[in-house]
């Protein structure tokens, strides 16, 4: 990128392109001569940063929440085009399949694409919403999320801390809404209300191939109104928009949530091409066709455009909120406890 731009001493805003064209790695004899004396080389830092990121690799932790049978595992497999979640149909005993309480199962994978390495962790929550009495079924999930924050906090306040603290915090929680076509159920409202304060929630309408387009639109409308009425702020949150450009992009997304998705990990032949889809007697639903379902939008949002933003919001907002609350409450907690103990030696176990 030796475009000969001058280094200017200024405080002005600069315009940025949506996707920067990164310069080729600067070899030794490539640029320093050539008669361009106003080039300093500050923009080479972008390349350095990119190199560093590629070397370090990335981490992503996704949580899927929804009743069993809504297609969570299939959707994960479709998103990452591999067998991320093990198929549950191998289990024969139906009683064994539905756990008594909500379990949290976390599986990690190393995936790589074009030199970019990522450690993907999918956190499954079998048993959510499956019991007869579903009160407080969000509690194990809340506890898990807070435990991850706690682990990160403990690492961070160590004296000898690691060069890179392993990030196991849940970046995004995908919530599956059953396609009833009417409105949100009390369980959905309750869960999303509680969890939208601690984690980024992306609601999706599961198995959307049971809804016609009109039903889908009205269902989405109802859901959006109910979310607004209950004060539930799902990702992308309105209050975290950084500037006008951000707001514009996010407004478009907000008009589309919840995404109506169909998941499939089987390929079929459609018009001479092999596509992922669901084959039925009345036609084949193409998963990646935006006329059929909104899977492509979800994939783009989660992976291609907003992944870094999701991680940033988790790290700088949700985690910081947890940290503030935690440090404040530990002050109060310890004060009452230490009031009666001698000050010299006090070991309090959490």
């Amino acid at each position, binding site marked *: 990128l030796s475009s000969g731009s001058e280094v200017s001493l200024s405080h002005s805003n600069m315009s940025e392109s949506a996707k920067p064209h990164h310069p080729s790695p600067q070899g030794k004899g490539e640029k320093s001569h050539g008669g361009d004396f106003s080039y300093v080389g500050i923009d080479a830092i972008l390349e350095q940063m990119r190199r560093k*990121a590629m070397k370090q690799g990335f981490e992503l932790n996704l949580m899927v929440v929804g009743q069993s049978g809504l297609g969570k595992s299939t959707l994960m497999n479709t998103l990452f085009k591999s067998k991320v979640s093990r198929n549950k149909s191998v289990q024969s005993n139906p009683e064994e399949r539905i756990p008594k309480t909500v379990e949290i199962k976390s599986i990690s994978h190393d995936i790589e694409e074009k030199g970019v390495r990522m450690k993907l962790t999918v956190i499954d929550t079998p048993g959510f919403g499956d019991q007869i009495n579903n009160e407080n079924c969000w509690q194990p999930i809340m506890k898990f999320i807070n435990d991850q924050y706690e682990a990160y906090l403990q690492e961070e306040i160590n004296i000898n801390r690691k060069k890179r603290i392993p990030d196991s915090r849940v970046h995004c929680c995908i919530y599956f809404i059953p396609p009833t076509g009417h409105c949100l159920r009390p369980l959905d409202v309750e869960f999303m209300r509680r969890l939208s304060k601690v984690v980024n929630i992306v609601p999706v309408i599961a198995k959307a191939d049971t809804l016609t387009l009109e039903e889908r639109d009205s269902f989405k409308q109802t859901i959006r109104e109910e979310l607004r009425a209950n004060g539930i702020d799902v990702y992308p949150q309105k209050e975290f928009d950084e500037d006008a450009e951000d707001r514009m992009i996010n407004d478009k997304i907000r008009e589309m949530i919840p995404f109506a998705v169909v998941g499939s990990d089987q390929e079929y032949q459609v018009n001479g091409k092999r596509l992922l889809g669901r084959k039925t007697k009345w036609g084949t639903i193409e998963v990646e066709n935006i006329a059929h379902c909104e899977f492509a939008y979800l994939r783009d949002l989660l992976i291609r455009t907003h992944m870094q933003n999701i991680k940033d919001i988790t790290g700088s907002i949700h985690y910081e909120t947890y940290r503030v609350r935690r440090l404040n409450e530990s002050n109060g907690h310890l004060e009452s406890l230490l009031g009666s103990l001698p000050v010299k030696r006090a070991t309090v176990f959490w």
Partner: protein
Amino acid sequence: MASSDVARQLDKGARPLSLAGHVGFDSLPDQLVNKSISQGFCFNILCIGETGIGKSTLMDTLFNTNFENFESSHFEPQVKLRAQTYDLQESNVRLRLTVVNTVGFGDQMNKQESYQPVVDYIDKQFETYLQEELKIKRSLHNYHDSRVHACLYFISPSGHSLKSLDLVTMKKLDSKVNIIPVIAKADTISKSELHKFKIKIMSELVSNGVQIYQFPLDDETVAKVNTTMNGHLPFAVVGSTEEVCVGNKMVKARQYPWGVVQVENEHHCDFVKLREMLICVNMEDLREQTHTRHYELYRRCKLEEMGFKDTDPECKPVSLQQTYEVKRQEFLAELQKREDEMRQVFVQRVKEKEAELKEAERQLQGRFEQLKSRHAEEKAALEEKKRLLDNDLTSFGNRKTAAALLQPPGFTVNGKKDKDRKKWVKLFCLCFTAQHSSALMANFELFFFFILIHLFYSVFQFWLHVKT
């Protein structure tokens, strides 16, 4: 749809997975870079060197701008640091550059404490960052990072070896900041001397155990370049912001009668190497080293100094929170004790003051009583005098009435006075009539003359009557 190859293992516990199609997370580095662009970058350089060695000029040349520096005096009593922040922009990258210069370094007679202000400055930047990190409500991503990322140490071109001041200073700083030594004003040394000088400097640094910054070799793309550059340390630089016409181009150079030293000519000096290493290739690594090595070291030392540990005597991990809480309780208890002491002292003082005031009040009371008694006395004396006077007055009155009884009527007791008055009246009349008689010569007038006399006599009689 390109298929990908088998992934390398990032760490244990994660199984590798192969992707059957294009997922799209290869745009992650771009997303990261985009975010960094919108946030902007921060870079802080510290320049240490004697006054007049060319620090400001080199900075100007390096960043191709005029930083508006003025010459410092040689008579500073102490080494001071002057930090200036600039916002630079090149294509779409914004850089917030802070240049810190030492003022008066090496000018004092006694240079023993010269390094101290520099060390203090660096520590202070670490301290502010640590404070921000330890805060409860913090905003690290908005925080303007002022920690020193690179330190350019300017060696004067004596051609022999390092000065002891240089060695001492660099030794103190090598664990706190990335030191990059440069030979300033390299156009005063010839090529062969320069080669020997560089070898001498490096061997001195090694033998004294000074850890200067080595360009990183772990990334394949830049390892080769960095290895070569590591061999050229310390860079011999020449700085200049003036342009001279050479051939048909304008180049940054210094013009001498015997020739022109071109700054960006690699045969003349190592300026281009310095710029490439410092900015184009290793800026991010410098920042990372500062954060992960120097800052962590500082943080560790500082926290251990404050008494925090990671494990307590039973080797159970003690959370920072607990120790912090314990310390906080101790501190609060001490605060309480001091407060009580102060309160006691205060009460004591109040009592003393009260006693003093009471004493003063008593004294005033005494004086007042005294005054009152004196007044009473004086009043009594005056009353006595008044009585005497009254007595005199009454006796005099008595004498007066007695005297009045003895005198004939028409004459008051004050007869003498009246007699005098009568004498004057008589005289006045005689004069008046004499005057008129002298004016009157005819018989006719004689008649009037006698009437006048009669008039005067009756007036006089009347007046006497009135008088009695």
